């Protein structure tokens, strides 16, 4: 009798993310994955049809994990400042604690896996975030602007800080470590720029 083995599935998932994150999609293969995860290739084929099925399934799961972390404690009815601050804290926590996941998504950029993942997670995410913006507009907290302008002001500054932190250096090689204080200071400027 062969049973579903959650520990093996977990090992396959974790090692697949790690391998793609470190070595890219071109070098990824089921046989190599089997060796790294300590299972036989047959075990992987029991759970997944092929490489494409495996990577699609894992990227959707990771995408959902990221969406859920980003929306934790968030309510589209919140005031603009409170809601955006929760978004910042959640996004920073996810990016700082899930290096491999972030690197995995980076490797998927421009792949069909990413498109499929976005198809699945976008709806719920866009609905929640869309309502948040509509509420802020209705309450006259912010001005109407294009999504790209909004994102560039609302979130890009946070991701710049995270990028500096991950590289350990900021401009002209200055040493850099991310902190809650820096995040708060940056957020204060962002809110000033966005709120009416």
């Amino acid at each position, binding site marked *: *009798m*062969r*049973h*579903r083995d959650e520990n093996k599935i977990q090992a396959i998932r974790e090692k697949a993310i790690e391998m793609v994150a470190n070595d890219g999609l071109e070098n990824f*293969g*089921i*046989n190599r994955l089997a060796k790294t995860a300590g*299972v*036989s*290739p*047959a*075990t992987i*084929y*029991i759970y997944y*049809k*092929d*490489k494409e099925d495996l990577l699609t399934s894992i990227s959707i799961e990771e995408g959902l994990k990221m969406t859920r972390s980003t929306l934790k404690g968030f309510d589209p009815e919140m005031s603009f400042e409170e809601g955006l601050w929760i978004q910042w804290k959640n996004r920073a926590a996810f990016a700082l604690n899930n290096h491999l996941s972030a690197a995995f998504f980076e490797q998927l950029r421009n792949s069909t896996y990413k498109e499929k993942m976005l198809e699945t997670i976008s709806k719920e995410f866009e609905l929640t975030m869309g309502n948040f913006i509509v509420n802020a507009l209705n309450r006259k907290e912010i001005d109407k602007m294009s999504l790209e302008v909004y994102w560039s002001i609302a979130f890009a500054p946070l991701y710049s800080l995270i990028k500096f932190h991950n590289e350990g250096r900021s401009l002209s090689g200055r040493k850099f470590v991310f902190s809650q204080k820096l995040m708060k200071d940056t957020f204060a400027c962002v809110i000033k720029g966005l709120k009416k």
Partner: protein
Amino acid sequence: METLNHILIFKTNIATTAARQQIATVLDMHPLIAQWTVDLMDVDCVLRVVSYHLSPADVIAIVARYNYECTELTD
């Protein structure tokens, strides 16, 4: 607990789309095969068959009729 005995895994030499097309005619039509795939990207050209009724030996016999190698991969 969910059992997975209906998923059968084989190493084959079904290495091209033409070869896959050839066995597709019989596997698609087989009333006891719910689903099947061949991973042409893999060195072992893994054939994966979902069937609640066929044994590995049954699948090997079907594939052998088309002169392809097929051996069960165990986990």
